[in-house]
């Protein structure tokens, strides 16, 4: 293998190249054949289960009993419960529209033309504002649906987006505070970050949901959902702050000195010189942390929120569809995959973009 090259040398045909890469010794040949067969078996099995032998849409569970493949009928029958949770059935359009608005807001803020403080602020105020008005109601003749009843995908997406939008600016502030020249400030930031990082997310969310109401006066409590989102955002911010701090430390001292020597203010040095480089240097770990956060939203189930994984288990939990939990979880996994894959592709795009602007 030592003489293997990654790119076919000029003049080498594709076939000869493949032969050399895959069958260069008899051992390589056996590995190639065995893993090729295993892959083939896996693909055909999954495909025939998921597509060829599957039952797509039936009125009841009977048709699925004899089928060899997947029973996607369960999604047909239970899909709305999975996607909307406990949200009142007649009002599902509000949850769907709210979910679409949040997704569109996230999509728009991924677009470089939107990257300005005021533009992003306006976008997110509008996005969150219309989401809350739609889902909560009480105005424009919409009946009130309290946040305890929000659920499914809309809730997952809303929690994730809020955690990110609150947590990211907080992370920047924490990272800068931890590097502050004033010992009291850097010390407080360090204690905060290290404390939050030493606690399990579950503990923080429990504290936010259950303990805080005993501590704070009524007017400062907000809703349970609001407290949980805030606790979650603190958790995300603590980790993201350490990522940003590492990014800042990887910038040569000369960058800050050059900015100072030019007479730039601290604010401008940080916003124009330090942070853009810190984010660029830590893009892979930032994307990683965001993906983890998205997946961790499922943990809010435990304190009684009906986000998408919880509504999925409710969908199969009782009665006739109980046998088809695999299909339901595959469906939910697919929804997660779409988001997470989208995020990581976007991360790859950002890396390519930042490399283009400095190679």
């Amino acid at each position, binding site marked *: 293998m030592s003489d293997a090259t990654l790119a076919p040398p000029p003049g080498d045909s594709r076939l000869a190249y493949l032969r050399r890469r895959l069958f260069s010794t008899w051992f390589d040949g056996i590995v190639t054949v065995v893993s090729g067969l295993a892959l083939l078996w896996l693909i055909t099995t999954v495909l025939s289960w998921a597509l060829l032998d599957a039952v797509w849409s039936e009125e009841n569970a009977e048709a699925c009993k004899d089928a060899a493949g997947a029973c996607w009928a369960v999604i047909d029958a239970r899909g709305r419960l999975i996607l909307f949770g406990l949200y009142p059935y007649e009002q599902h359009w509000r949850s769907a529209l709210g979910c679409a608005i949040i997704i569109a807001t996230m999509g728009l803020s991924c677009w470089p033309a939107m990257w300005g403080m005021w533009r992003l602020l306006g976008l997110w105020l509008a996005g969150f504002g219309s989401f809350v008005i739609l889902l909560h109601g009480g105005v424009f003749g919409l009946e009130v649906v309290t946040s305890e009843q929000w659920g499914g995908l809309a809730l997952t997406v809303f929690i994730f987006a809020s955690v990110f939008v609150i947590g990211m600016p907080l992370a920047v502030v924490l990272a800068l505070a931890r590097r502050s020249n004033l010992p009291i400030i850097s010390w407080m930031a360090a204690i905060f970050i290290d404390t939050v990082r030493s606690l399990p997310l579950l503990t923080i969310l429990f504290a936010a949901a259950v303990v805080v109401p005993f501590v704070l006066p009524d007017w400062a409590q907000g809703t349970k959902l609001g407290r949980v989102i805030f606790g979650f955002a603190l958790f995300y911010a603590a980790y993201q702050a350490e990522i940003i701090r590492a990014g800042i430390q990887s910038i*040569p001292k000369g960058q800050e*000195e050059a900015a*100072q*020597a*030019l*007479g730039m203010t601290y604010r401008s040095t940080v916003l124009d010189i330090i942070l853009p*480089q810190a984010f*660029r240097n830590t893009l892979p770990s930032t994307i990683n942390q965001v993906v983890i956060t998205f997946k961790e939203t499922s943990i809010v189930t435990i304190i009684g929120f009906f986000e998408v994984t919880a509504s999925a288990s409710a969908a199969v939990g009782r009665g006739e569809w109980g046998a088809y939990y695999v299909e339901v979880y595959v469906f939910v996994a697919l929804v997660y995959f779409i988001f997470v894959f989208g995020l990581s592709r976007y991360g790859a795009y950002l890396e390519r973009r930042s490399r283009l602007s*400095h190679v």
Partner: protein
Amino acid sequence: MSEPAIYLHGVVKRYGAFIALKDVSLSVDEGERVVICGPSGSGKSTLIRCINRLEVHSAGTIKVEGTELTDDDDAIREVRREVGMVFQDFNLFPHLSVLENCALPRIRVRGTPRAEAEQIARRELERMRIDNQADKFPDQLSGGQQQRVAIARALCMEPRIMLFDEPTSALDPEMVGEVLDAMVALAEGGMTMICVTHEMGFARSVADRVVFMADGRIVEQAPPDRFFDSPSAPETRRFLEQILGD
């Protein structure tokens, strides 16, 4: 008598117990060109970094264009607007294009509208003969080109004083010339300059005065002819023998 552009009196810089500058006094007139040389570790960088307060001096007085450097942030920013600095390793902003490296600080510090700032940036890049690279990014350029961009960036602030800290030391030998040429052109334009450099040809042809430092002190200062031909201090003679000896 008009006030000197730069005035240092009894300046001391301590790093913990170590004393990097020991009672340094120096005065540079408007339009004067001063070259500072001396062995490595003698405090040359520390001295010029005190002039724009990248280092905070421990004792003594520093005045730039009549403004004394104290803890007053406004005074510090005022001084930094008037004093451009060029570093040994360029310190261009890698995430910004060449044009943006020059225009952005101008916009942020002097509040110049973008269109005008870009015009100024192009003018200074042209002066450094590097305007054809305006849309590239710093690491697409050679060391000599990067250093000329760094000079242009400093000039965009339209400073009255320029500080150079060994601007050619990090360059491949074949690129030293282009940067020195740019500095000579600047000197001919009447800029007040302090250059830390060991380029003795440059010192001889451009400097009004050569300052020799050793061990945190100014040992000797003289016009270039006298400095090179009849140095008085033994340390200076030893130093000159070392760098001119080969």
